[in-house]
């Protein structure tokens, strides 16, 4: 049985990597399971081929997807910047 997932690295905490799975939840993984170059923000393409006795998980960094998502975040931040009242603020 084969399945694909999209992971994004939120952060590393020591030897633990916190990873967002399919945009829904954060899980902790041993950092040693990820590609050694994986950094926070990296989008990872994951394929899982699971058999009864063996599962093969392939985790691949996807720099193009990372840059696309980063650009989308920047665009939203630029939109929000226009909502700034400026100066000191009385709440």
């Amino acid at each position, binding site marked *: 049985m084969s399945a694909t997932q999209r992971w994004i690295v*939120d952060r590393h905490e020591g030897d633990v990597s916190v990873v*967002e799975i399919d945009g*829904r939840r*954060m899980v902790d993984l041993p950092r040693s399971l990820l590609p050694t170059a994986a950094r926070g*923000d990296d989008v990872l393409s994951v394929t899982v081929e699971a058999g009864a006795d063996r599962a093969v998980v392939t985790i691949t960094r996807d720099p193009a997807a990372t840059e696309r998502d*980063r650009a989308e975040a920047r665009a939203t*931040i630029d939109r929000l910047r226009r*909502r*700034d009242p400026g100066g000191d*603020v009385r709440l």
Partner: protein
Amino acid sequence: MFAVLLVAALAIAPQDSGTLLVRTLDVTDARIGGDAILITDSADGRARHLLIDAGEHGATVVRWLDRFHVDTLAAVILSHPHADHYGGMEDVFAHLPVRTFVYGGTPRTTVTYRRLLADIAARRIPVVTVDSGVRRLTLAVGGDSAVLTVFAPPPSCRALAGRAEGDAVNDCSIGVRLTHGGFSMLFPGDAEIPELAWWLEAPPVPLAADVLKAGHHGSDNATTPAWLDAVHPGAVMISANGRQHPFAGVLALLAARGIATYCTADNGTITVRAPRGGAWTVTPERSGRCHARTDT
């Protein structure tokens, strides 16, 4: 007769008039922790609230907000976009009105963060982006007020390939200095040694404070002798997940200086009470000393 009326008037006057409460909420669970700090200023029988960070699980923070009868947040401040600080925010925004959102404008790729920003945009909430200099926020209620001076991370956090991306998000935390009368408290987010050094080199605000919220949950990369020399706190709050944090070295450093230290993992929610013109006090939900979860 006058004396009787005066006594009666005092008896019905709000007990917390002109009082600031800073609650470091216990958002600890088996896996995660994060920060969630509720600030409440009250006077003349009214109270206004503000939240710094929202932990990772919204349900946990919402339960605390309900318990403290919070029906509106004058502002939500995000120190930096890691999930253990922003993860609970979407639920908070859905649960009650938020009047202002304050953050550092750091881009991240995680879907949950981008969804949060899109949600804030859709709600048409004013957004204060503190990516340079300082911004002063005044939380006013009745005849009282508290001031939050929010200070920016280094300029490199704004660069497209700068510190803000990848693994250096902690070092793009915004800092907050809270003052109320003679009381002050400092919140450095998860700033680590490089950002602390940048703030120490040219302090954007007075760093000395009565109480310090420890950076990065009591990790040894965020509480240093130089930082403690500058802040010189009388008490330190550590919002820790109880699994990795806090570090033994940090607890030893604080103990050696005789600084009263409280940890959410051991003490539950910790309340600092600062009445205007009076002495500040700390009340933990549970008594007990902090225990290290990492032996360095």
